[in-house]
């Protein structure tokens, strides 16, 4: 069974902006799926719909075999999202933030404590547990943000441009976390980014989108074949992205 199936999904905002235009894609269970697109391609709108925050104008979304419009509450229990902007409460301590998140997902106290200890240790947050979050560095806040999103042991974790604005060292640390979440926690990861290198390194499957519509969905390796048929001998994902988006525009 697919983790996510999107069929001809469209979203038009009240100001008539067409954010998504008959987009279709499939995400397999357990994989790291990356949605690649430039700014304004519709990535965040898609994440907002898949996380039940927005309602689509038309089209169908199935998550873990359930229709998102009919089984919203059940789906909410199975997913979690790390938003583009760090979304932790700076007036709470790390522990308070994690417990708050656990209670949102109706976890019982002992499960929360157990899960919290595992995540604190997995994400190297032991030294920060009782300090007010407002004193943390950006990198620590991001680690906590992800750890919080994993409190409920979601089957699917959405990461909306998690490395935007990070230096290369922090970005590499984040890549390790994504791998860890995918491999050790058996979680399907749905990642959006506009960093091509990131998509290439992390993904099992990449979907390139433009103007609210998918252009192509395949493995990073197969995507590179698209340009070898043309002029470039050993293409990078940058070449593929530019070739495909340019081709579509012209």
């Amino acid at each position: 069974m697919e983790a996510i199936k999107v069929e001809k999904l469209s979203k038009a905002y009240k100001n008539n902006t067409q954010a998504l235009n008959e987009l279709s894609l499939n995400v397999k269970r357990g994989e790291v799926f990356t949605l690649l697109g430039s700014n304004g391609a519709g990535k965040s709108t898609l994440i907002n719909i898949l996380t039940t925050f927005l309602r689509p104008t038309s089209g169908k979304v199935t998550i873990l075999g359930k229709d998102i419009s009919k089984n919203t509450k059940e789906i909410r229990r199975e997913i979690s999202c790390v938003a583009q902007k760090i979304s932790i409460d700076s007036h709470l301590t790390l522990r308070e933030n994690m417990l708050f998140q656990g209670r949102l997902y109706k976890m019982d106290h002992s499960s929360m404590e157990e899960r919290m200890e595992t995540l604190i240790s997995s994400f190297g947050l032991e030294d920060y547990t009782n300090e007010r979050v407002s004193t943390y560095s950006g990198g620590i806040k991001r680690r906590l943000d992800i750890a919080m999103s994993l409190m409920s042991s979601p089957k699917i974790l959405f990461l909306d441009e998690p490395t935007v604005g990070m230096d290369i060292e922090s970005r590499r640390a984040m890549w390790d976390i994504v791998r860890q979440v995918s491999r050790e926690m058996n979680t399907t990861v749905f990642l959006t980014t506009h960093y091509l290198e990131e998509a290439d390194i992390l993904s099992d499957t990449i979907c390139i989108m433009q103007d609210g519509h998918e252009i192509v969905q395949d493995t990073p390796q197969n995507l590179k074949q698209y340009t070898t048929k043309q002029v470039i001998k050993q293409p990078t994902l940058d070449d593929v992205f530019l070739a495909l988006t340019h081709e579509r525009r012209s």
Partner: protein
Amino acid sequence: MEALNIFERNVKWRFQNPVTLVMTLVQPLIWLVIFSTLFTGSSNGDVGYTAFILPGILVMTVLSGAGISGIATYSNKENGSFYRMIISPIKRGSIVLGHIFDAAVLCLIESTVLSIIAFLMSVRIGTGIFGLLLAVLLLFVVIFFVAGISYAMSMVIPDENAFIAMINTLTLPLFFLSTALLTKDQAPGIFKVLISINPFTYAIDSFRNLIIDNSVNWMQYGIAIGLFTALSFVVFTIAKKTLHFNTRL
């Protein structure tokens, strides 16, 4: 339980930012200390003006404290915690209730401070401890109603400044067109009608009865608590609906 989780989070913020408590307390405090002293003698009979004006000032505290409480929605949206809550399986009603309980804590603390100051200014509750409990219950229902409206408005008004302007615009007429400063009989012509259709008039009259008189006017109390319970129910439903519809656009 869900609502308590939201409430606990909000209240922790409240106690770490006591300035919100102080700021909404300033205006009622000025009214209580300065105006009640200034206008002493203009009230009915032997009752001191401080005791007469206290019910209106308590309602003013609720209108400003619970009225502005919806502003938290804007900062929650800005820092992402709103999104985190909305995509979780928590009931929408629990989010609204958590907000209302937080506003209740704020307003009840402020009302306690004002009542202690009024006590120091020789105001006594005529109906005793029982009357005090009835007053707290009525105050809670009034807070529930106002905080519920504030939350619903914060869902509908997209801009924080417009929200503040709207609350300020509504608060003053609701205060002045009530029996906060004078009795209905003392009001001229058309104002009598406007005062009669203002629901806060009924709460103020009942508070005044509990403070000034020696026995509870049950008819008056029943009307006030019944009216605000019904209004709170309606407003809570509206707030839940606005939250639902504004997060599933």
